[in-house]
């Protein structure tokens, strides 16, 4: 089951594509479709986060809370759109159990001006990491353990204040 949000902003022709996914997705195909959907944008910046294959973590589980998680991602998207002039914005985030090399998150921003696209994707990632309603645990040596928030994630947020 996937929750999808495709709502146009008031006065804008374009929409943000924000989805909370509970099944694997294909970032390459998502990016292909996103770039094709915004032919007037000269540039597309993307961030792909994938489960690191480091030999130690056997699996990763992301939990979300239905009433908060997707609505929070949608509010983030609106904030990004209000702050930079974009042709399009894509925010995809997995929930559930993931294996090494599985994609976790894909953010992409399409814009006429390169700087806007870079800043928007960077900002969206910092806020997704530090503020979105996901809880993560890792399976290491057959034992699940919860991942604590990192101080770096909060420091990243401070760059935008």
């Amino acid at each position: 089951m996937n929750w999808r949000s495709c709502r146009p902003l008031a006065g804008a022709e374009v929409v943000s594509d924000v989805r909370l996914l509970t099944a694997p997705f294909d970032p390459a195909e998502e990016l292909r479709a996103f770039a094709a959907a915004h032919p007037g944008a000269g540039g597309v910046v993307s961030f792909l986060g994938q489960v690191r294959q480091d030999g130690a973590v056997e699996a990763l589980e992301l939990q979300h809370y239905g009433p908060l998680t997707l609505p929070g991602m949608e509010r983030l998207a609106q904030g990004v759109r209000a702050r930079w002039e974009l042709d399009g914005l894509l925010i995809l985030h997995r929930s559930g159990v993931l294996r090494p090399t599985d994609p976790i998150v894909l953010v992409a921003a399409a814009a006429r001006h390169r700087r806007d696209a870079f800043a928007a994707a960077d900002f969206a990632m910092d806020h997704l990491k530090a503020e979105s309603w996901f809880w993560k645990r890792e399976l290491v040596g057959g034992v699940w353990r919860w991942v604590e928030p990192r101080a770096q994630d909060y420091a990243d947020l401070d760059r935008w204040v």
Partner: protein
Amino acid sequence: MAKLVFLGRLADVAGRSELDVAPGPLEAVLATLDPALALALLDERVRVALNGDLIAERGVVLGADDELAFLPPVSGG
């Protein structure tokens, strides 16, 4: 019945992700729980959402269809 929802490590402490409880003041509800769980839920870093809306005040009285979620610090992406 009202419903408590435990996210992240709180679900481990509770041994479950949801728990039906009798309606009433939250304080009284917590008093019926395992003390270790009640203590974890009262951690000041744990935020609380009533029926999907974050609330700042914990002096809430749970009605029969209310859902109260306990949200430890996030660690997403």
